[in-house]
């Protein structure tokens, strides 16, 4: 065999080299904020178990202008999560046939986002009813 000396290119900064990868990283980064929100709720539940005064402190914190502004940012992140989640969901599914024709990925995505809209409205109405 002829002389061989292969060259392996480094992977450092691979995700910065292509807009597709940047969008992928943005999508994955949403999970950091899913955790952050869960921690906020966890703090609330723990404070709740510690009595009215403790819960009052959590409520005060969550009601501050910084918190509201941060939640506005969280809202945008969760909206992006919903959109990107249902965009990738069709890839995890085997072909779904409706009326003899295969359901397009974009249709499944649209159905998912519609489900999220319905669930959100239902949740909001339930909160109003139960509160």
């Amino acid at each position, binding site marked *: 065999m002829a002389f061989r000396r292969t060259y392996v290119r480094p992977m450092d900064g691979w995700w910065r080299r292509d807009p597709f990868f940047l969008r992928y990283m943005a999508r994955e980064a949403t999970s950091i904020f899913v955790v952050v929100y869960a921690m906020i709720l966890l703090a609330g539940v723990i404070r709740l178990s510690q009595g009215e005064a403790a819960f009052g402190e959590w409520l005060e914190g969550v009601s501050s202008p910084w918190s509201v502004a941060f939640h506005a940012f969280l809202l945008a992140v969760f909206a992006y999560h919903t959109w990107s989640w249902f965009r990738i969901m069709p*890839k995890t599914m085997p072909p779904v046939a409706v009326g003899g024709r295969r359901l397009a990925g974009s249709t499944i995505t649209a159905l998912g986002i519609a489900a999220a809209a319905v669930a959100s409205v239902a949740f909001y109405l339930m909160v109003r009813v139960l509160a």
Partner: protein
Amino acid sequence: MPDGRTVEHITIEVLRYDPAGTEGPRTQSWTIPYTHETSVLEALQHIKDHLDGSLTFRWSCRMAICGSCGVMVNGVPHLGCRTFLRDFAPGPVRVEALAHFPIEKDLVVDAEDFVAKLASIKPYIVPKEERRLEEGPYVQPPEELERFESFSHCINCMLCYAACPQYGLDPKFLGPGLTALLHRYNSDSRDGAKDERMELVHSEEGVWSCTAVGYCSEVCPKQVDPANAVNQNKTASALDWFARFLPGRK
């Protein structure tokens, strides 16, 4: 925009590498004439035929079916024969060997890992049962074929491996294209080797290295949709992880 007869010029930058030398890769540029119809492969052939005979690259059919001419064009995996300089005008056009593979020389990559893995997935029908001629042909209705037909279109061009960052980060990953091919055979009603192939799927180097980046399906020249094959198998593998504890399973 030039038409078939007008000749314009464009600069091609190629990442060159000489294994017999002492240096690493370096960029070399040539300015070449091109028309509306000139492909990246033809540009490379022009350079090799008229400007620098040492330029080394793989090619064969010139019509996007052999899978030999995969290269990175401006950082994106393409088949050279099916990628046109007109889409990158005014240039320069940067051509590199397929990403995530070791470079042998210039635009030729070391594909041994891919070829070894190809053999390991048993890319052929292993008959489910002995069948005599008198029993007649297998019957496979169009709806059944439709479920996996796209995965049979793979031409082993490895563009999906060049697109997949998980393969780049960890070459032990089975990878998109071969998982699609594996899935093609698992989905075929005539085949009986699914359990053996699933062993590859269930492993860390199988589907569980995939993080659903999805770039593989974007760059595939044959719309195989390997991302779908891999991620369908994630669901199957996850369900099987629990199903194996059910009574009646080996």
